[in-house]
């Protein structure tokens, strides 16, 4: 991380910056490990149908229930005789998409609110921020539980609940990074040359605030996956037989004494996914830190 060469051509500034960050990210073994694990998990989600038939993850097969790991069922079977590996592979689709979708949506919504509040300031900012204060003071888990109770359990409602509870976080982050660069000289220069407000936000402010926001987004995907699994655990997540990782784990809770493997493997899957995102986010933070530049 110490020496960074400027090999990229200086004419194409945007590209060279990206390359520089990538160059520094590449040097962190932990970040690359995270990236590789994450890529594998995403590939697993994308090609889930090719790997195993969805029927295997859903159809009950009572004679083979509660089997431990064996050549036929690598990770054993659950209380309904379904293959756990098949359920985990198909579950990656659900769990990862909950993570990515709710972070992207809450980043878009929270970011929009935060950038408007931060850019205009004044009364508007005051009103928006007091509202955000209220949202932040309600623990996110309670907020999710309330929203899911209102809307009823299920995948899409779970997405809404988690998205709502993350909007405030992103709003605060985007607002504070906008506040720090709003009064920079280059923004003033843009304004002086007659660039419109919307264009300033979109073209000049957002690209310059991307660093910390990307780090936060990466780390948030991990915590969303954890929250979704947690909500499934208290019975407010996706509905059976949908194979979300948290749901698979929860279904194994009653067999914890006789067949602990049902609880063990989905937990490892969740841990791997969240861990890869944390490794990557941590590496990104270091790679984007201007103080580490030389």
């Amino acid at each position: 991380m110490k020496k960074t060469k400027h090999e990229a051509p200086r004419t194409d500034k945007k590209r060279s910056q990206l390359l520089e960050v990538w160059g520094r990210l590449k040097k962190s073994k932990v970040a690359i490990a995270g990236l590789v694990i994450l890529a594998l998990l995403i590939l697993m989600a994308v090609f889930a149908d090719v790997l195993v038939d969805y029927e295997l993850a859903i159809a009950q097969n009572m004679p083979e229930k509660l089997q431990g790991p064996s050549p036929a069922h690598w990770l054993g079977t659950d209380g309904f005789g379904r293959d756990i590996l098949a359920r985990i592979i198909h579950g990656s689709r659900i769990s990862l998409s909950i993570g990515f979708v709710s972070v992207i949506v809450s980043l878009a919504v929270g970011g929009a609110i935060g950038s408007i509040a931060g850019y205009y300031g004044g009364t508007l900012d005051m009103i928006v921020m007091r509202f955000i204060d209220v949202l932040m003071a309600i623990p996110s888990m309670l907020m999710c539980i309330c929203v899911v109770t209102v809307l009823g359990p299920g995948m899409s409602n779970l997405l809404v609940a988690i998205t709502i509870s993350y909007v405030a976080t992103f709003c605060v982050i985007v607002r504070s990074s906008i506040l720090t660069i709003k009064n920079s000289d280059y923004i003033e220069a843009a304004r002086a040359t007659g660039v419109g407000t919307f264009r300033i936000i979109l073209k000049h402010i957002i690209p310059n605030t991307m660093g910390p926001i990307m780090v936060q987004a990466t780390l948030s995907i991990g915590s969303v996956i954890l929250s979704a699994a947690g909500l499934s655990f208290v019975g407010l997540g996706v509905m059976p037989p949908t194979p979300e990782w948290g749901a698979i784990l929860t279904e194994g809770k009653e067999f914890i004494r006789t067949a602990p493997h049902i609880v063990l493997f989905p937990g490892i899957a969740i841990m791997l996914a969240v861990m890869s995102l944390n490794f990557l986010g941590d590496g990104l933070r270091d790679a984007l830190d201007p103080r580490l530049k030389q």
Partner: protein
Amino acid sequence: MYKYVIKRVLLMIPVLLGISFVVFFLMDLTPGTPADIIMGDLATSEAKAALNESLGWNRPFIQRFLDYIMGVFRGDFGSSYVSGLPVFEELFSRFPTTFQLALYSMILASLIGIPLGIACAVKQYSLIDSCSTIFALIFISIPTFWLGLMMIILFSVQLHWLPPNGSETLAHFIMPAITCAGTTLATLIRMTRSTMLEVIRQDYIRTAYAKGATKGRVIVNHALQNAFIPIITIVGVNFGYMLGGAVITENVFGMSGIGNLLLSSIRSKDIPMVMGGVLIVAVMFSIVNLLLDICYAYVDPRVKAQYKKGGA
């Protein structure tokens, strides 16, 4: 200083009103009426209608909300729809469990996290540094309920060392406290490390070494004192959150704390209970944050000087 405290307490009121409104509104949207919960499925619809009428359920939403708020100002939090007991009594009986769990897990996290973080900073890029960093990242990634279940499998089912659920004795708190401490522990290691790294490079640390102070003395007396604000912030904020009840951990270990109570109340639409619980949680959280700000003044003379100068 006291002016500042009063100002902060007054500022809590609009936030609390806002929270009450949001939660009251959300609970209002959930299906079912209070009579359905109080009387169950067997009662006639006439009896239910009469009970709803007497509870004021048929009046407009805003009026019900205002009535509730007025009640709270008089110290009346209402009675639970489910148990019929006064909300305050019920919350009060649950509080010790939640408080103990929060206290033990924060003590555990601090005792391990702070020394490890310091060790990482003092010996940067050493084996202990990279090991703790990876350990911290892995620990944040473990789902709390899974960690709890794994410990139950190992220590209760296999080894019979610890009771799997309940909250009667200290032994009941060991596994839940470890489960809850995980995230804070990991954050503490990383935060202590990065703050200490910044402090260690300051001029006054070099001065202290130059005076001939020993390494241990410099670290404890000079560096740690100046790195304390972010550290107590993390411990404090997490303690505040934990006082709101660790919903999932309490659920895993079958503990009768505030988190479990809130979860079941929300699911059964026990509005007075939910409102009371959420308000208590929010008040606790705000008070802890206020105490933290006061703490800063004692730890950092610069902050104290600000209060004296500004008077607010």
